[in-house]
């Protein structure tokens, strides 16, 4: 085999060229770079200390951290539910005055039509344009808690987790305008027939 090479060597490398030769590849005997060594040792030291701290000495686990975080969230929820969630006639009137129905239509179209379809004719969820209601009496005060709390067993989400309280009032006011409009193509009635009551 031809062992002649035109190996490129810098002047400061000639004395550290090892005479191992593999298919003409040679190696230098440079020391380990000091910054590399430092990184290497620090990585190992960190690993040992971190493991001891968290898995032997009992520093807070991920689940401990979560418990703390969740307690804070629950506090916020309690506060929110204390302040909201009860139907307030005065607020509803104010919302309607402020163009609530129109705003509610936007909320409805963003969040509700996947199940109730445009104009509330119903598909996955029930028809909102007839006089049959499953979880309420079709009035704003009885619809509000259904939207706010949801009916998780039947697939109605707890909208207070998603929508603001104002948005819930708005969408409820919009739904009220659909009531008894008997839109064409509506889903068959579900729930109990509610005799016409005074609205609003």
């Amino acid at each position, binding site marked *: 085999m031809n062992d002649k090479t035109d190996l490129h060597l810098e002047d400061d490398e000639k004395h550290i060229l090892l005479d191992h030769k593999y298919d003409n590849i040679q190696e230098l005997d440079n*020391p380990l770079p000091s910054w590399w060594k430092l990184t290497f040792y620090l990585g190992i030291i960190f690993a040992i200390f971190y493991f001891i701290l968290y898995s032997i000495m009992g520093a807070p686990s991920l689940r401990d951290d979560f418990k703390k975080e969740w307690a804070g969230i629950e506090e916020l929820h309690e506060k929110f539910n204390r302040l909201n969630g009860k139907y307030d006639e005065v607020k509803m009137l104010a919302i309607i005055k402020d163009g609530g129905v129109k705003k509610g239509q936007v909320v409805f179209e963003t969040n509700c039509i*996947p199940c109730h379809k445009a104009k509330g004719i119903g598909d*996955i969820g029930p028809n909102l344009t007839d006089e049959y209601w499953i979880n309420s009496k079709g009035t704003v005060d009885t619809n509000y808690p259904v939207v706010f709390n949801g009916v998780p067993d039947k697939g109605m989400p707890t909208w207070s987790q998603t929508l603001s309280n104002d948005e819930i009032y708005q969408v409820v006011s919009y739904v009220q305008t659909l009531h008894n409009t008997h839109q064409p193509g509506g*889903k068959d009635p579900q729930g109990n027939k509610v005799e016409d009551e005074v609205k609003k």
Partner: protein
Amino acid sequence: MSSPSAVHRTGRLETYSYDDQIVRMFIVATIIWGAVAMLVGVTIAFQLATWKMNFGLQWITFGRLRPLHTNAAIFAFCGNAMFAGIYYSHQRLLKARLFNDVLSRIHFWGWQAIIVSAALTLPFGITRGKEYAELEWPITIAIAVIWVVFAVNFFGTLIRRRERHIFVAIWFYIATILTVAVLHIVNGLGLPVTIFKSYSVYAGVQDALVQWWYGHNAVAFFLTTPFLGLMYYFVPKAANRPVYSYRLSVVHFWSLVFIYIWAGPHHLLYTTLPEWVQTLGMVFSIALWAPSWGGMINGLMTLRGVWDKVRTDPVLKFMALALTFYGMATFEGPLLSIKSVNSIGHFTDWIPGHVHAGTIGWNYLLIAGILYYMVPKLWNTEIFSKKIANTQFWLATIGLALYYVSMVSAGITQSLMWRAIDVNGKLVYPNFIETVVKIVPMYWVRAFGGTFVFISFLLMTYNLFKTMNQGTIGEIEVFEAYALDDSSLEENAGHHRKLEGLPMVFAVLSLIAILVGSAIEIVPSLLSNQYITKIDAVKPYKPLELLGRDIYLREGCYLCHSQQVRPMAHEVLRYGKNSEAGEFIYDHPFQWGSKRTGPDLARIGGKYPNMWHYRHMINPRDVTPQSIMPIYKWLVEQKLDLSTLTKKLSVMKQLGVPYSDVDIASGVENAQAQAKLISADLMNQGVPKEVEDKELIALIAYLQRMGTDYGSLPVNK
């Protein structure tokens, strides 16, 4: 100081030649499969940008194609490249022809047959449902057999070597061959149901642990160590430079091999894996940073003094950039393993971004450099066009930059949206789709970046085939070397130097190095169930649900949906109670997933009515406008296959799922009864035609069951 002068070799002078034909074969296969892998990659990138690119065809829908892309990129493209490079360098480093020409051919054709069978099964949904280990059991066994053929050929050559000591490249090859064998076999264990279906022997947390020990080390020992070995051969050869530091080679080889194997659990941070195992995964990943960089330093510093050549020589140019990306990816890896960073990056597009910095930046570019080195040598000519190679270089670099930047920004953007909580303790973006719509533009950028990379590959394909065409396969060269005898022993050799003269001892030691971490991390979890608190409410799947779960696997749902609610407030707000280990004990295989292109499904059960799922599968946009999910309308057209149900239940029983004999015998009846209930509910809601014997019903049954056994228990139990 240089060591004592070279030994004077005596003894029998032998003649030998190299088997270069096998290298040429693997090179051609590398080029072809590389193009295929990237074509599929570009396709699925566009499918994420627009669902219409799925064309409503089940065989090419994202969930079926993504495994094809990853398997083709890793095992077909990088696999063939690895074999080409190893067979080329191994012979030359040892002054010996490959052990057996027939074994070499079996290795080649066997591997190509495996790739073809992967391409013929994955689009049909034939999968084990484990990432990067999707291929069903007959193919999994074939891989093991061919790998052993490779190993025999490799170690046989080592035994017949004429060079006493083994060069650092070969150390890496040895670690690769042994570790991949161990990983593949342990993670591949399963019980067959039919020729096309098997269930993993492990379940839930244990399956997750074994899977990510495998998955992570597939990256380590299939995409990193063999290519480091190739780097150690081809960079000094191409640069005509000595390797920078022999001592660094020794230290970084052993530390890399020993530490890498522990790092797998960093894929499972915040999951229900025991926390001490998670912590081990994290700290070893951080300790891995320096050993990984040892390879980059040795590579880049070897280029010292020849950087002017890097500017002009395509071979060196590709290698230098590959080493740079290797350094970047192996810094980012430890960074992403830190728990708090991981809580942001995990499940997002940052991870595919990171992975492609490795596979495109490191593997593809290094392979390009190696091919540009080998092809002219093996075809006795020059590179056809340096200009094309240059264009390729820049296209690939720009494409990868677009890919990486778009994915990291998409990942971080989406993650921040996921976790945003307002003053009322509510999610700021409660609708998952809002966070998707936001990053779709980034999916387009990624798809075009990927297209650039693909085009760059096509340029290389053209350039290399032109090079082959203009060259000739010359006469087979015959060399002379002394047979190995005592004259090759060095006096006063250091310990490691002596070890380099004993490859089999070397092999045993490296096997021990990888087995230590594997044993300490995995064996305790496998042998005892003490880490998993049993939850009495969690019961095995009903027969119909089990069939639905198999459809979930078949469609590759796990590639876009996770099944693991991490203990974080925003996740619990979005999805429901955080997951517990005891919930997954009947999950053969586990389906936690690693990416949330869509929302987590661990608590999907009961969240929506059956009708919602019915509409959603036929057209996701009916219920979620702007959804990017493909349509799955064939699920309402195809009849559910009940013929293997009894067998499936009894295989599950063998795996330890407590089905009674009555459960198994009445399985079909039970499934039909449950299907009737679901379809009656659907028809009640106005679904026009009879659907009770269709696949969708089984999938709905599974989805409605998921996470409910534990999820419906009162909180603060």
